[in-house]
């Protein structure tokens, strides 16, 4: 939530800007957006009509780069580096941060080896420094580093722009959550009724016992 609040203004700024610029300036706007330290979401900017006009022009690689930052990872970039612009250090760092978010989408426990491979990092110290300074301290993930098990346990990860094909999975998860919540409420209702019933039965039983005690007293 915090991340969204921080980047909402930025997104707004870039979207408004993108709507007014021509192709050459759009390319530098994309470079600026993908380098900005507080921006981790690009789908709003991507959907500005002006930008889609870049496709098929000499600036189409900038458009592809923006799409990569919206949905892609560092590995994606490396496998398409030939037809994408060279990244500035800030952009490279940002793309690696986004890669961590993508990895955190599917797993809560991220092995060091997988992270080092995905992020192109050669040793543990460098990996941990990146996770500490660029990820945990920037607030996009929260979690614990475990050196014995050589893994990063994610407790929270900010959301990236979902790809269209992810929506059905999200809907399914929401539906099952709703279902389990409904059954939870239902079982609570059942428990309440049961408790009421038991308390009624208890009362009745106590009354019967008291009546019998009275009777016995009288007869004595």
């Amino acid at each position: 939530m915090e991340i969204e609040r921080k980047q909402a203004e930025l997104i707004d700024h870039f979207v408004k800007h993108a709507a007014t610029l021509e192709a050459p300036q759009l390319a530098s706007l994309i470079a600026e957006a993908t380098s900005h330290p507080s921006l981790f979401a690009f789908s709003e900017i991507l959907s500005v009509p002006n930008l889609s006009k870049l496709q098929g022009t000499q600036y189409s690689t900038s458009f592809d780069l923006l799409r990569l930052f919206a949905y892609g990872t560092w590995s994606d970039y490396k496998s398409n580096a030939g037809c994408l612009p060279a990244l500035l250090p800030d952009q490279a760092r940002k793309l690696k941060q986004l890669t961590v978010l993508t990895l955190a989408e599917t797993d809560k426990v991220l092995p060091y080896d997988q992270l080092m491979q995905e992020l192109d990092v050669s040793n543990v110290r460098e990996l941990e420094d990146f996770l500490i300074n660029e990820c945990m301290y920037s607030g996009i993930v929260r979690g614990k580093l475990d050196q014995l098990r050589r893994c990063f346990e994610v407790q929270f990860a900010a959301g990236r722009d979902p790809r269209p094909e992810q929506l059905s999975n999200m809907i399914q998860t929401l539906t099952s959550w709703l279902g389990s919540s409904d059954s939870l409420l239902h079982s609570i209702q059942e428990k309440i009724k049961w408790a009421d019933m038991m308390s009624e039965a208890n009362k009745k039983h106590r009354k019967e016992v008291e009546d019998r005690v009275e009777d016995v007293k009288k007869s004595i």
Partner: protein
Amino acid sequence: EEQVSVIREKLAELYESEQQWSKAAQMLSGIDLESGIRMLDDAYKLSKCVHIARLYLEDDDAVNAEVFINKASFLVSTSQHEVLNLQYKVCYARILDLKRKFLEAALRYYDISQIEKRQIGDEEIDEDALEQALSSAVTCTILAAAGPQRSRVLATLYKDERCSKLKIYPILQKVYLERILRKPEIDAFAQELKAHQKALLPDNFTVLDRAMIEHNLLSASKLYTNISFDELGTLLGIPPEKAEKIASRMIYEDRMRGSIDQVEAVIHFEDDMEELQQWDQQIVGLCQALNDILDCITSKGI
């Protein structure tokens, strides 16, 4: 005695004008304040004690200054003389600082920084002096031994709006957020420190080194479930054996929770919160996040 004390005061003035502070203090300390012959009122005694202490402090001589501040402490409680009382407070804070009782000094400095009056007696209190006191409070807190008490004072300072204008604020923010401080930041912080705050301790660490290492160790305990001595040493910039020793002392002094496995050469950190509490916290966080989204949906009229 009257003549002697007048002569001593004159000589002390001369020494003071030549900035020979300790000599001036010694000269004044020769005045017998407990004389049975002359009746001296408490205000006079207090003013002399505080004046002598201030002179000794000019030469950073905390030991002698403390002798006279202790004498003054019997007189200050009944004193109505606001200027003297304030000077007494400032001396006491500086003595604690010099004696490296940083957390106590920080509390005293912070107290002084909150003085609201701008005119006490004939002495004017300027903003710079108050800001200096506040900045000293922050410095001493950062140098204090890491642990729960220090965290509380850090929180007070961090939430005090005046601190955000201080030059030292970025360090305060990182320390409060329990973030690891890197060497360049520590070196920049060291530029602002006084000599005694960089003094060498018996174990060859400076006061600053120890404060920073302990702080970074505590910060690491928030980031790691466990860490090897080697990596911890690299992270703290010290040999692994030293890292282990400092960690064990902090655990022993109950300033950090954890355990040390010397066979595996690993430190296991424990959370302040029990497992079950953590579980509850996660559920609370989940519900809060859900609520935020619902609020967002409502506010957007979706």
